[in-house]
């Protein structure tokens, strides 16, 4: 028997045993059998450790200026080289993980909350509330989100908290639609109707019977949302409208390298932050894909 055949048999065995597991264990098991998702989770784990322990791991202070090594190519002293003012690129990449990941997580937490509340209300209350909220959602979806974020950060002034706030404020419409759709679908299912007949109140049915089942698709959406938020922060910082100097951010490192003199002559200054952004987003997309399979959620969104 070939390896792949053994793998298939093992998979079928695993599927046969599935009914004995609790839903949580089953999801975990499916996630772990998704090879790309595990790779993504490992990459993210390394990045998270970098972000949390940046002070310990980074070889230099990210803002320390080394006047003897200005804009140098990678060497034993500075593994990824130094930027135009002599700061260690590797240290700035490591600290940059802190910015990217925290922007991603916090901004998504903000808009998930908004989308969850609005979508839940629209789906469960229905009637005029549904109409009002969903038309508002439709309106917000007409505006290009990235442009609104740029304008708001332009008005408030570029800094870390304004970036998080702007991404958080405009990211919710997709989530609201998702939650509403799920609630509408679940509300009509037999077990929810049964719970209502058995005397569960409207709120009780919503909180105890409907919302737990929305968690799966929401987790997937949140994961992919973090990837989107990291891209948005990188794009803002790249345009000089995000995290500003001297805070190290991957997007602003690319912004520093925009002048033709650096872009053409010192490519190491933009390659490493570019790869960092791509790798982080790729890893999170892998995780999202694995979660989607694990929760068995179908999605047809075009990215």
């Amino acid at each position, binding site marked *: 028997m070939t390896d792949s055949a053994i793998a298939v048999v093992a998979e079928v065995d695993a599927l046969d045993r599935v009914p004995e597991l609790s839903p949580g264990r089953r999801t975990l098991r499916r996630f772990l059998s998704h090879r790309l998702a595990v790779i993504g989770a490992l990459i993210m784990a390394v990045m998270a450790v970098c972000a949390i322990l940046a002070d310990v791991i980074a070889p230099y202070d990210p803002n320390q200026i080394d006047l003897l090594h200005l804009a140098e190519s990678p060497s034993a002293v500075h593994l990824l080289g130094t930027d135009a003012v002599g700061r260690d690129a590797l240290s700035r990449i490591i600290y940059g993980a802190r910015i990217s990941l925290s922007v991603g997580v916090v901004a998504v937490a903000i808009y998930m909350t908004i989308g969850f509340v609005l979508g839940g209300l629209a789906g469960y209350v229905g009637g005029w509330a549904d109409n009002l909220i969903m038309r508002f959602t439709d309106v917000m*979806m007409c505006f290009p989100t990235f442009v609104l974020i740029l304008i708001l950060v332009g008005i408030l002034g570029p800094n870390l908290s304004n970036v998080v706030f702007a991404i958080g404020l405009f990211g919710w419409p997709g989530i609201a639609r998702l939650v509403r759709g799920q609630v509408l679908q679940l509300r009509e299912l037999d077990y929810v109707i049964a719970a209502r007949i058995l005397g569960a109140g409207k709120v009780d049915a919503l909180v105890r019977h409907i919302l737990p089942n929305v968690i799966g698709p929401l987790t997937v959406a949140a994961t992919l949302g973090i990837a989107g938020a990291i891209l948005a922060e990188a794009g803002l910082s790249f345009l000089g409208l995000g995290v500003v100097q001297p805070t190290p951010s991957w997007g602003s490192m690319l912004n520093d390298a925009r002048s033709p003199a650096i872009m053409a002559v010192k490519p190491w200054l933009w390659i490493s932050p570019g790869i960092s952004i791509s790798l982080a987003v790729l890893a999170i997309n892998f995780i999202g894909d694995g979660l989607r399979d694990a929760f068995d959620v179908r999605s047809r969104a075009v990215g």
Partner: protein
Amino acid sequence: MTQYILRRLLLVLPLVLGITIITFTIINLAPGDPITAMLDPQEMRQLTSADIEQRRVELGLNQPIPVRYLIWVREALHGNLGYSIQEKRPVAEMVLEKLPASLALSLPSILIAITLGVGLGVLAALRQYSLFDYLATAAAFFGVSVPGFFFAFMGMYLLGVKLQVLPIFGMWTPGQPTEINLDLVHHAVLPVAALAIAHVAGYMRYARAAMLDSLAAEYVVTARAKGISEVAVQWVHVFRNALLPLVTIAGLALPTLIGGSFVIETIFSWPGVGLLGYTAILQRDYPLQMGIALMSAVAVLLANLVTDIAYCFVDPRIRYD
């Protein structure tokens, strides 16, 4: 169907209302005096402060907010989106002037994205689990994960700086005629590719998933059981059902495309609406920013309307719910 189209058209009204309310709100949140933004600056130079106060009353800017909103909508409907603070010119005129340059990037991008993305997605689905399928899926992951500006940097560095086969700046070589010519196409290659890449990946993933769904559908099993040739099954039963919804997906891509053009036009110094908008944000030119936001939103609204109605023609099952 006529009823569906009528109801879909009616839905546009509250959306336009909402778009104008949100734009108006942000304008009023932005710093600066709306009166100076609404008046023709040439004219304003000759006015005394008493005159300006008079204009304020004439334009109704001393009125309560709801009345001011109605006045602003009336002006917007007449094409007056205010004047740019920096350039002292009407916003609508400035945006329309830059629009052809932006379309020169976005139309080819979206066409390439749809043909390439759908083509790859369909092939990948027809050969599910083949090497081609794995490679296409992997490429799609990279396509949605690598930011457009990093992709642009790589293209500029490799093709523009190292190999020197493509220009990396502007729409035409300086000194050359500024018309639709090969020079323009040459300059457009990199920005179009950078703008299209994420969309190619998106359409590929969509088309692959939709095809797989459709291939497993019972009507396909039935068609095969009837003895219809595989080619006919694929063309008549699978493609049609899998790819029809793409019509609406194409409409949904517009906001991402507009957002992406802000970044890509800036990198390549491409003189379109995106670069205009980016400059407006850096210069705190609020009337210009809001004009661009309003016009983008209306464009998205119309695109969705057109795709919904087009979908209703290609798929007779559609009914308004």
